[in-house]
């Protein structure tokens, strides 16, 4: 059995895919994927934001790490529908994906301040073990 680039990485590691239906109501920072352990790292391969209802100057989606100072890897602020304003925004980070900080979870938020756009957001990627495991103390969580 063979796979293309994206799925091959997902199959070799721990693949994930999420679908989020955003609403006009504000969602503050929420965990999308909890990292498996402090020794794992999450890689994001692709984020797709399909905008169903536009809302000018409002955050459609922000995806970031769970650090105390979050590292944002993708964010889109919507505009009123017009020529050049996309209905779909794709962040394609390639098959290897873009990593977030080691041991941090993947968070998201949307519609900051309320009255935001309505969207379908699809996120996929994988996580992999990237640090030495201490079998005597942490085997169960790795």
């Amino acid at each position, binding site marked *: *059995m063979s796979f293309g680039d*994206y*799925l091959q990485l997902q199959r070799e590691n721990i693949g994930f895919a999420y679908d989020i239906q955003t609403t006009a109501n504000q969602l503050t920072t929420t965990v999308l994927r909890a990292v498996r352990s402090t020794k794992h790292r999450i890689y994001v391969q692709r984020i*797709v934001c399909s905008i*169903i209802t536009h809302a000018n100057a409002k955050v459609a989606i922000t995806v970031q790490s769970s650090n105390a100072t979050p590292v944002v890897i993708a964010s889109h602020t919507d505009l009123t529908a017009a020529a*050049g304003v996309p209905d779909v925004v794709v962040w394609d980070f390639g098959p290897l994906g873009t990593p977030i900080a080691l041991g941090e979870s993947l968070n998201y938020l949307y519609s900051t301040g309320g009255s935001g756009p309505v969207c*379908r957001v*699809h996120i996929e990627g994988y996580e992999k073990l990237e640090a030495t495991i201490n079998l005597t103390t942490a085997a169960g969580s790795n």
Partner: protein
Amino acid sequence: MSFGDYLQIQRENKAFQVDIAITGAEVLATHAKTVRSANHTLYVQRIVLSITTHVATFSLTVQDDANTPVPIAKRTDLAGAAGVPDVIEWNFGPRGTALTAGKNLDYLANAGGSGFVGRLHIEGYEKQSATVNLGTAASAN
């Protein structure tokens, strides 16, 4: 024989591909793909809308047929002009975006009629996502 990501997932499951001519006439919520059973889930990998004749303010929506439909894609057309795209692609990746379990894939377009003209292409797959009761539902799964 080997396949890339999109086709590999389609081959592992039950693939579908639909091509629909958008004529400008109003289309009320219509099944683009009927789900195999209440125990299956449809996944949409890619939607391509090619608009050949633009008409401002008319729209196309792709959604499931839940009691409160969950839209996954919508495009409202604009008058043809520089910067107005003739093709819009929603690429949800090889795994695709999931509809509500057991729900069909619907589309609707051009409310009121005399809207835009184009071609709609949707592809994806469906897979069993719930336990099958062999005693009562085997033939439907």
